[in-house]
Every structure is written in C-alpha cells, then in structure tokens.
C-alpha cells in the first residue's frame, strides 16, 4: 500500500503541491486504524489477519468436536433422518452464537482496560485448558470411572489417577 502511494504523492508534490491531495493520501491509513480497534493505539502485538483466523479456527474446532452441541446435532440427525436440514439449522445457530460471542468480546474490550482483560482471559484459558486436560486424561486412562472424576478437585483427591493426568495435560 505504501509503496504504491508514495510515488503518486511524490509526483503530485513535484508537479503541483495542492493541499487537496494530502487528505486523499491519508484517508486509507485512518480507515485502517479504525478497523483494527482501540488496542491498535496501545502496545498490542501486530497479529496478522491470517494468523488470528487460523488460531481461532483451530481452537474453536478442536473445542467443539466431541462437545455436547455436536452430540445434540448428531442425535437430531439420527432421529430425523434428514441430515441436510439438521446441518442448516445447526450451522445458522452456531454462526449466531459466535456472532454473539464476538460482539460480547468487543464490548468487554471497550469497557475494561486491555491489560486487565488480557490477564483475565489468560487465567481463564489456562484454567479451561487444565480442566479439559485433566478430564481427557482421566477418560483416557480410566474409561469406566470417568463419570466420577469430572472435576479436577476430585481428581487430585485420588493420587493414582490424577498424577499421570496432570503430567499429561501439562506436557
């Protein structure tokens, strides 16, 4: 963008220094800054569109597979015998719910200071990861008793199953 705009602004400045060309050259930069949100003025890391897309896709996809929503869609699909209709309904609902989530996150970013939000989000993500990891490791190691060991508190009370689970989830 800057490589193409620099020769045009240089040529207009060399031929005739009209003040009308200066706001035209500055207009795309202003719109980009508005699109990138309020953290762009702060010290946020410049993550690219593709990397944010990839990270979000991978995390949400992995978290959603085997989740209760997928089990509900599966059940409805098996009951009705019309997987196409079930897919359209589930996809519309999931798009709406992800829109709600994105807008809620945007609103939180305008209300809370960014650093406190990042700290809160980091703690939440690490806690979710530990909880899911302990659950999954317990299920993998002791499949019949998985229903009893739902919480990490219950898992730490039983040393035989919790210690390999914690090591697996952390490593």
């Amino acid at each position, binding site marked *: 963008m800057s490589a193409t705009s620099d020769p045009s602004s240089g040529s207009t400045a060399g031929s005739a220094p009209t003040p009308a060309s200066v706001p035209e050259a500055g207009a795309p930069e202003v719109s980009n800054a508005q699109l990138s949100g309020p953290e762009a003025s702060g010290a946020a890391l410049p993550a690219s569109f593709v990397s944010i897309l990839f990270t979000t896709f991978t995390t949400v996809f992995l978290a959603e597979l085997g989740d209760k929503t997928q089990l509900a869609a599966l059940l409805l699909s098996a009951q009705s015998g019309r997987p196409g209709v079930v897919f359209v309904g589930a996809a519309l609902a999931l798009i709406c719910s992800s829109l709600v*989530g994105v807008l809620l996150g945007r609103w939180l970013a305008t209300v809370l200071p960014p650093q406190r939000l990042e700290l809160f989000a980091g703690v939440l993500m690490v806690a979710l990861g530990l909880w899911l990891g302990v659950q999954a490791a317990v299920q993998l190691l002791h499949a019949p008793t998985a229903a009893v060991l739902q919480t990490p508190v219950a898992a730490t009370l039983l040393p035989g199953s919790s210690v390999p689970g914690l090591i697996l989830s952390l490593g």
Partner: protein
Amino acid sequence: MQLPLLASTFLTVFVAELGDKTQLTIVTISGTSNNTLAVFLGSAGALVLASLLGALAGGSLSSLIPPAALQLAASLGFLVIGSRLLIRVRQEAS
C-alpha cells in the same frame, strides 16, 4: 421444507451453545485480539465444519477418534493461548 425440524435444531443448538466453553473462547479471543472479522470468520467456519461433521458422520466419528483425545488436543490449545496472553501481560507490565 422441514421448517419445524429446522427451527428445533436452531433453538436446541443455540441454547446449548450460550455460555458454553466454545463461546467463552470466542469472547476471550475477540476481546484480546484486534481483528474482529478474522475472529468471527474463524470461529464461524470452525463451528460450521464441526456441525457438518456431526450431521454427516452420525456417530462414526466418535468411533474413529476417541473424544478424549480431541479434548486433550483442545486443552493443549487453550494452554498455549492462555500462557501466551499471560506472557504478554508480563511483558507489558515490565
């Protein structure tokens, strides 16, 4: 058109998804990243693909891949993102 089936699927999935860990993840990523469109496209695409697999596979997916293994992979993803956020907070504080 199977409008009742469409409506019941929509309502079931939408209510089941509100406040879920997936939506918490989306709120977290959206609040801490600066590209709302990328977060929305990534999460919506992942959810649509996951529901497509759920509707098409009809139970065969969970017999191919154990759900606990998928959950373990998801927990690693959460840990990576969470620790990256906490490291960033520490770097900004110092």
